[in-house]
């Protein structure tokens, strides 16, 4: 019963989380945080909101952006059904190599792919330079 009674206004939640109200509203708008459990003047936020805010802060400290956090929170089953690709990124890795990557790839995935592409480009370039020197 005691836990049930624990509801706060936005200002109270902000004070507890040591975050400005605007930041919390921004997180809600970004889908990082559920909205208040009841609408109206005494809009209610609870410990789950506080916990989520702590989690966000933790992820931020590890270098994740809000978009990346939102994707994590949305869970893994979200990206199962990919639609037909409509647009592609075209990476000119070397003069004779180009790689196509889905433009709607997950930013996480994209970052990963780009890392591999960078390695590939560096490898090919080193190869090339080696040949030129010979």
């Amino acid at each position, binding site marked *: 019963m005691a836990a049930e009674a624990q509801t706060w*206004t*936005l*200002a109270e939640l*902000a004070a507890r989380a040591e*975050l*400005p*109200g*605007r*930041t919390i*509203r*921004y997180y*809600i*708008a*970004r889908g990082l945080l559920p*909205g*208040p459990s009841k*609408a*109206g*003047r005494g*809009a209610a936020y609870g410990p789950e909101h506080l916990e989520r805010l702590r989690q966000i802060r933790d992820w*931020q400290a590890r*270098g*994740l*952006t*809000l*978009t*990346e956090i939102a994707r994590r929170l949305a869970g893994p089953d979200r990206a199962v059904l990919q639609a037909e*690709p*409509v*647009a*592609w*990124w*075209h*990476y*000119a*890795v*070397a*003069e004779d190599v*180009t790689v*196509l*990557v889905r*433009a*709607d790839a997950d*930013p996480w995935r*994209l*970052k990963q792919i*780009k*890392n591999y*592409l*960078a390695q590939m*480009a*560096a490898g090919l*370039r080193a190869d*090339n330079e080696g040949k030129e020197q010979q």
Partner: protein
Amino acid sequence: MNEGNGGFTVFNVETGREARLAMEGLWLTGRILPVGARLLVAHTFRSAEAQPLEVVYAFALPRDAALRRFSILGEGFRVRSALRPVEQARKEYEQGVAEGHLSSLARVYRDGRVNLSVGNIRPGELVKVFLELVAGVDWRDDGLRFRFPFTLAPCYHREARAVEVQPGVGELELPEEEFGDVLLPPYMTDAAALHQVGFDLSVQLGNELAGVSSPSHALRFQLTGPGAARVSLSREGAVPDRDLVLDVQAREAAPRSCGGVCRDGRARFTVVVPSVSFGRSARATPRSVVFVLDRSGSMAGAPLQQAKKAVEACLGALSEKDQMGFVAFDTAVELFQSQLVPCTAANREKLRRYLQGIEAQGGTELAAGIQAAVQLAGLGGADLFVLTDGQVAATEDILRVSRAAGARLHCLGIGAASQDRFLTLLARETGGVSRFVTPRERVDTAALELFAGAGRPLASEVKVSFDGLAGGKAVLTPPAAVFEGHPLVVMGEADTKEGGTLDVEWAADQGPGRLRVAVKLGDPRDGETVRLLQGARLITDWESRLTDELPDGRRSTRKARDENRLVARLEQLSRDYGLASRVMALVAVVERFGDDASRLPTTRVVPVGMPEDTCFESYFGAVQPLAVHGVDRAQVGLAEKIQTFRAPVDMLDLTLRESCATYRRSDSAAWQGVLCEAAGTEDDRLMEAVARLLPDGGLPGASEQERLLRSAALLLALLGAGSTARVGPFRLHVQKLVGFLKGAAADAPSDTSRQLIEDLVARAECGTVRSPQPREWIEALVCWAPEPSAVAWTRLEQWARELLD
């Protein structure tokens, strides 16, 4: 502005539908005076969504700027902001938002970033926020450069989190412990569908106005008096992907003053004394120079290429007695040599090869670069030349390091949205001077100009006395040294209503100098503007020392105590001048009929365009930039989006075609200019030629005769391009050539050739040249490489006659 549709209607270029923007337009109006600008920026917000909105617009303050107040205009109301300590302002704003009222907060964060938040805009409601601010200008001898940010550059910080959230959309977040709750905008590579920006400004120069031009926007210009004009955007609207830059030019370099009697009965004035009033630097003494080059990813493409060329050209102006050093930095720092080396031909050649290997990559650890350069320079009093886009966060920390280093820093800022405010401070606080260029101007010429002017000061131990002004005193201590091309600015106040004079005394190579300058007082409105500008300057200077977000009053370390004193000082300045600062914010809450506290507004941050010519991938792309073989990465772009994937296509061709389309889209003639410049213009030729000057001042050649002929031809070309030993970006090179030709004239093959050399030297030393000659003519002269013969000398003499007579 068309009031009927709220100023602008924005259509999405791809869908053709009206865009649902939370902010629809930004319109800049105001007055540019000889000493600064008083501006009014109108922001139009509209909620096109079904729920109430909280809209946050992030922007950067221009140099020496401060917010004065804002008013909110809505359907049936107009409310003015109040100035409050930041915490109180935030509470009032939060309370207003929670109660469903229309609330607005303008708060300044670190690095001069501002968040303008407007909460509870109802569905369909139109709200305008008119923000008043004052801003400083970049003073020149014969005018000024005004810059206003229409976009906010992304910035580098070790702990910043950046990611590309959708193709072409980047997001950047700064750590909250250091930067507070500041929100940065999403950065869009395609700014076409964003809010529209425009301007309509009046310009009053005091002296006779020669003209107003802009390297950034197409202007409509209308002369309204001998020293006044009105400038506006010549097209319907522009997109927020670059700063507005205006060059205001006077007919002559004469002292300008502006001021008036303020409401408190005291007069406030600012006097700008051009550097030519301090004579000319006579003695060329050996120099020690360290170049500090920003090679971070954001410099990729034209900015880095031009900066490298500029360094080479600057070296061409040095002799064997001069010492040089070179530091390049990105995430790490790299030294050319671990000590200063004499500027011999061999060392220059080594540095030239070293420069060729420099590519743009990584972050911007500017403080580390400066520290390394200071260490390299040692105690010898070397001048440091910093070439950077300054797109960094936590600039207050860099300033602290630089102040402590005790070296003089001269800065060249490069960028469509450069950190004008920061780089001005960096130069000023270390006793140096700064200049700014947009990437579509010639970075190398500007660097040469800065380098030529920032050698030995024209005047040192500058003292200003106010005997000719009742109750006169300086509001800010004027700088102790004056450099060529950079005027002395005196900000002061007095009890007089009539004006008077002030006396400037200084020491120079030619002996002590003295000058009396008239202080004219005009319109009381001008006095009030000058007072605000002085306040904004003071606030900017003090703010630049406040490193932490906002100091916690509970801490009792020495640093915390210092910062608390700073906060108190800033609060007092804010109250005295009625201007916002890091510790005082502007807030307004409007209670409207039918305000509904039950609906939580949805927060939206207004996106801005990536600054033109800044490589998106350097912030939001791959961790390390990919090398694209054979093609300049910055020009083609790392990745090109292929719209549809239906049939086999030749990928590389498509990439190239698309990149051409990108160029055309930016539809400015200036851009075309940049593309042509890559192929080489006469300025490129001259830049390359002067970089080849040997330490003795002449061009290289197979024989002494060839050297003499070629050097004489180059001198003629430089004269033709408008440079002499006294004026023009190539003046140092002209001085060197003159020195060489004087010494070698005795070896001239004939009396006529000797006479020609003497004429050229005389013209370079004292004469003025007609307006710059046609480019083909100069190009022909620089590329001319004949055998030294009587025929060749006759040809050169004919050319000289065409130019000099």
